[in-house]
């Protein structure tokens, strides 16, 4: 009997660390080419629509920024959580509550129209997301609850709460009984960065600023050192005088605030009103983005853009060569599989271990 084991490499090659994403891309292209050929599509043409066509025109680059912005914002926050060993799986819920909290002003006080509304909405969105993330943090610190479970469960609570609001008390009275709030007034809309060229809004700028700020914090500030020490060795952190419970709150609040900002930016920027279709899994996809970017905020920017490109490219390929959406998703899965697989093999090697046959139990 042979067993496959992953064994940690004593040190990993810097060369292969740098090459790994490209090797992964190459493997994805080979596997994709095989799949597309089997489906009777021309692989080169398909790749062209996937990776080049969406980048050819300005409007499409704006769309890339729209799709990537929430993924990057959320993933940057999650990197702080995961580096400090706090497993926040509930960013989707924090995203929704951020959107709801940020929508309070335009929905409940539509007469309050001033330039101050939008900044307040963004702050309330961040506060809402952070407050919602504080629940699993509190439960973890106070009762030692598993934050993976509590944060995940709170996603469903948030989804149903939002659903209840937009079908019930927040429903647009002019909306023919369909779910969704009334459209936001103009002061509550997040402006586009460069309206002449496309519809990307300031959410993308927030994402870049957040990425640089968190990168600076993680790599240049004592707080960043604290995050990593407590993540890798809580005992060592205690000797250094760092407080683990305070770190739990810090990580969850940062990540909740950024997810909340992503939520209100999506609602006031890309959609223009609060509705029940808001939650399409950005908070979960961002987990992939965080790891794809190796938990480095700058890597996350690249990862977010690449993942967004696979959505846009998949769409372009669907329209132009007639790929079904199942194939598009399978191809996206291949890319993630190869990237994460290659990264794993930088740190680990595969060893085949022969094990003796199990002895029959003694009678």
């Amino acid at each position, binding site marked *: 009997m042979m067993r496959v084991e992953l064994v940690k490499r004593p040190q990993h090659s810097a060369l292969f660390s740098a090459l790994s994403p*490209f090797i992964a891309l*190459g493997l994805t292209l080979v596997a994709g080419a095989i799949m597309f050929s089997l489906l009777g599509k*021309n692989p*080169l*043409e398909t*790749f*062209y*629509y996937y990776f*080049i066509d969406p980048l050819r*025109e300005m*409007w*499409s680059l704006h*769309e890339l920024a*729209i*799709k990537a912005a929430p993924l990057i914002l959320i993933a940057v926050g999650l990197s702080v959580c995961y580096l400090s060993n706090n497993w926040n799986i509930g960013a989707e819920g924090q995203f929704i509550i951020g959107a709801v909290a940020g929508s309070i002003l335009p929905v409940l006080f539509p007469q309050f129209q001033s330039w101050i509304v939008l900044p307040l909405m963004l702050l309330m969105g961040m506060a809402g997301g952070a407050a919602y993330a504080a629940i699993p943090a509190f439960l973890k610190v106070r009762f030692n609850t598993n934050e993976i479970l509590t944060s995940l469960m709170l996603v469903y609570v948030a989804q149903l709460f939002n*659903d209840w609001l937009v*079908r*019930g008390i927040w429903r647009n009275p002019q909306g*023919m*009984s*369909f*779910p969704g709030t009334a*459209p936001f007034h103009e002061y509550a809309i997040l402006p586009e960065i460069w309206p002449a060229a496309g*519809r990307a809004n300031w959410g993308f700028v927030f994402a870049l600023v957040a990425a640089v700020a968190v990168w600076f914090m993680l790599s240049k500030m004592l707080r960043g050192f604290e995050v990593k020490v407590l993540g890798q060795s809580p005992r060592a952190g205690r000797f250094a005088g760092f407080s683990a419970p305070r770190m739990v709150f810090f990580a969850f609040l940062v990540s909740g605030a950024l997810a909340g900002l992503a939520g209100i930016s*999506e609602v006031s920027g*890309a*959609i*223009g*009103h609060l*509705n029940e*279709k*808001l939650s*399409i899994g950005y908070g979960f996809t961002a987990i992939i983005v965080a790891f794809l970017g190796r938990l480095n905020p700058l890597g996350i920017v690249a990862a977010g853009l690449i993942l967004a490109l696979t*959505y*846009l490219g998949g*769409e*372009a390929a*669907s*329209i*132009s060569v*007639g790929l*079904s*959406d*199942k194939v598009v998703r399978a191809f996206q899965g291949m890319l993630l599989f190869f990237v994460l697989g290659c990264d794993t093999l930088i740190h680990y090697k595969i060893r085949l271990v022969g094990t003796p046959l199990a002895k029959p139990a003694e009678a």
Partner: protein
Amino acid sequence: MRKTLLSLAAAAAAVALGTVAAEAKVKACFIYVGPIGDFGWSYQHHQGALEAQKELGGEEQVELAYLESVPEGADAERALERFARSGCNIIFTTSFGYMDATNKVAGKFADVKFEHATGYKREHPNVATYNSKFHEGRYVQGVIAAKMSKAGVAGYIASFPIPEVVLGINAFMLGAQSVNPDFKLKVVWANTWFDPGKEADAAKALIDQGADIITQHTDSTAPMQVAAERGIKAFGQASDMINFGKETQLTSIVDNWGPYYVERIKAVIDGTWKQQDVWGGMKEGHVVMAPYANMPDDVKKAAEETEAKIKSGAFNPYTGPITKQDGTEWLKAGEVADNGVLLGLNFYVKGVDDKLPQ
């Protein structure tokens, strides 16, 4: 690596340029909220698209493009813009949630015609809306249910409390009451359009509460299969689901979009396309009943008579006297409901054994 990528790109560009086929007369594009293999809503729209292409002269005349499972938010707007820029002449957006995106993109591309299904906003002259009176079919189902049910109780699996679904529930109830005034209708809100697991659970719960006829306003075939296992009768949804319940399906409301798609794409070819708001029903051929099956001849006859009455335009299911669930009068005898009220309907008629989620 970089060199390979560049040459790959160049090769791909060459391929792309080489494949520009002879221009069809019109490019019709469809955006679907689900997969075309759902055997329900999106499947029927796609069947209509294929029918239109075939009817109007095949691929040389009508080029089709479509996108499946497009979420109804920021993604829809992008998908529509890509469609508009890729040379679509007419774009059908086949779900309510695409309403704002359709109108936004239509404002930017005045030469492209947009057709939005089930919505009510037409903010630009190049946006038309269309919908079908599915509730006409549900009235016929109600008549059949009341005649077939031994318990006098039917179970209704509903998706979301939007006017169209409420309209269907009420029409079913009114049809049943026209046969048996004491008929009871139980409703379970599945809060999904397509989730076979949840829909099956809803069907089981309704049967356990005494319903011996199941009908659904969700898109999967799961409730039909549960009804078949339990040996009771059921109605299909959106498409003819007889293959999922050969001895179970009484009939099904088939969404027949083909005639409308033929007409509208042809209008683009002929240059006669105009903005409109169409709410077609049995009369226009947009709502079709699947063959009546698994019922005695007298029930079949009653169903056919009801269908004929609605189809001829002689009868509107929403004709008074109708009392609201709370006991107040809605329509006086002979009074016909206003379409505007129906399209925003948010209350039950008397006899529905459920509280409408508000």
